[in-house]
């Protein structure tokens, strides 16, 4: 099987894994399509989840939402298995690989030695594919890497059985049958409705309301300590936005790519225009990141209210965008 598996570079681990898994099983689907159909785009500000004392800001749905969401809407036969003992988890992986199965794993980034050292934080929901084994080395296709890598057995075991928030518990998953050809328009319409509903939900913390709430928090950051803690807080938002797998601007571009592709596949031209608008919004997110980074480095004076204002403007833009998306979805006569 190592010969037949083709690695593909992706911008997000979970959509990348699903895209490769589906393609391997005879249903070619781009990463963007996977991301969009699983309604993975989102925004959430979760002050009660603290990582090194800073709140979680996420620009997408929680881990496993893509795999589970897509499995449901495409009626995929995906098996999920978790393990109590690491040795049982590794034996099961070996048995599946021996039978030629492509296996997806949930891992902790911190324990994967091939990852760049500066990016190895304790994030427990990183997805990779394993397509083979050569003695004590596993052949790993990490979608965020340009090429495949090798990972020693002991390291992979550690990464699969890391503990803490979102502990993978050795989670592995695989497909057993070839998925049926999907009804793109039907799935697409439902996925658009779902994303619009989440982004416009009248709930605190999520969607555009969550963005406004985060803006309020930024505005109120104390500057009494010379801005040290405020800089860390802002840096954390941007890091979650651009660097690690929660990408803010990046995910807007990924979703825009989905809209373009869906438009081309179904001939519904309105989506093409919406894609263009979302690219502009993604650029605004990047400007927000740039302005924040300049303040962190002291190139511009630290001014949380200025950043809060930018975030509010983004909330206005996104609200309008998702209202339009919802309207387009409703008007979609199939």
């Amino acid at each position, binding site marked *: 099987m190592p010969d037949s598996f083709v690695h593909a570079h*992706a911008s997000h681990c979970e959509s990348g894994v699903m895209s490769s898994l589906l393609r391997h099983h005879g249903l070619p689907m781009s990463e963007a399509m996977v991301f969009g159909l699983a309604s993975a785009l989102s925004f959430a500000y979760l002050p009660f989840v603290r990582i090194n004392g800073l709140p979680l800001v996420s620009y997408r749905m929680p881990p496993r939402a893509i795999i589970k969401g897509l499995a449901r809407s495409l009626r995929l036969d995906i098996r999920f298995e978790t393990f109590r003992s690491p040795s049982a988890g590794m034996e099961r992986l070996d048995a599946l690989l021996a039978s030629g199965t492509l296996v997806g794993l949930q891992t902790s980034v911190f324990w994967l030695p091939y990852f760049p050292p500066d*990016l190895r934080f304790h994030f427990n929901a990183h997805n990779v594919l394993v397509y083979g084994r050569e003695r004590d080395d596993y052949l790993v296709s990490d979608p965020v890497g340009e090429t495949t890598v090798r990972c020693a057995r002991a390291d992979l075991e550690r990464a699969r059985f890391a*503990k803490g928030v979102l502990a993978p518990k050795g989670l592995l998953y695989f497909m057993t049958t070839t998925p049926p050809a999907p009804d793109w328009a039907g799935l697409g319409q439902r996925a658009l409705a779902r994303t619009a509903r989440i982004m416009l939900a009248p709930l605190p913390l999520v969607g555009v309301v969550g963005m406004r709430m985060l803006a309020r928090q930024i505005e109120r950051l104390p500057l009494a300590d010379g801005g040290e803690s405020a800089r*860390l807080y802002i840096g954390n938002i941007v890091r979650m936005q651009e660097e690690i797998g929660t990408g803010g601007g990046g995910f807007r*571009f990924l979703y825009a790519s989905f809209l373009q592709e869906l438009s081309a596949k179904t001939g519904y031209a309105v989506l093409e225009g919406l894609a263009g608008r979302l690219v502009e919004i993604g650029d605004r997110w990047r400007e927000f990141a740039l302005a*924040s980074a300049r303040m962190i480095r002291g190139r511009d004076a630290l001014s949380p209210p200025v950043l809060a204002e930018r975030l509010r403007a983004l909330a206005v833009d996104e609200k309008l965008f998702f209202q339009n998306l919802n309207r387009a979805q409703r008007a979609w006569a199939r």
Partner: protein
Amino acid sequence: MRERDVPQEGNRTLAGHRKAVYAVADDGKLRLVPSRGWEVEEIVTRQAVEDLERRAMQARARALAGESSPLEYHMYRARMDVDLLSQVTGLWRWRVRRHLKPAGYARLPAALKLRYAEALGISSEALDRVD
């Protein structure tokens, strides 16, 4: 973002890797473009890493001065804090905090020490040392 605007700034945080980003090509279509990194990402990632490194260095100084146990140093070196160390070891936070003090650490039974060492990915002997 246009394809030609995709930053290629050679971030050291990426350690030579390229990450995939989506950008608009000349034909107006979005496509995947490998990026060598953007300085903005490098700034915020280094900020987080340096914050953890600073905490580790401060803990190291405290441990050498006998004000805290080596466990505190190793905890920060493994990019953890009390919350996370408590989760990965399954110990109460107040117990972890107690073991961060020299007196609490000195009374640590070998089995518990091993539990900490395994959670931090080092040996029990290495846990005692501050290098």
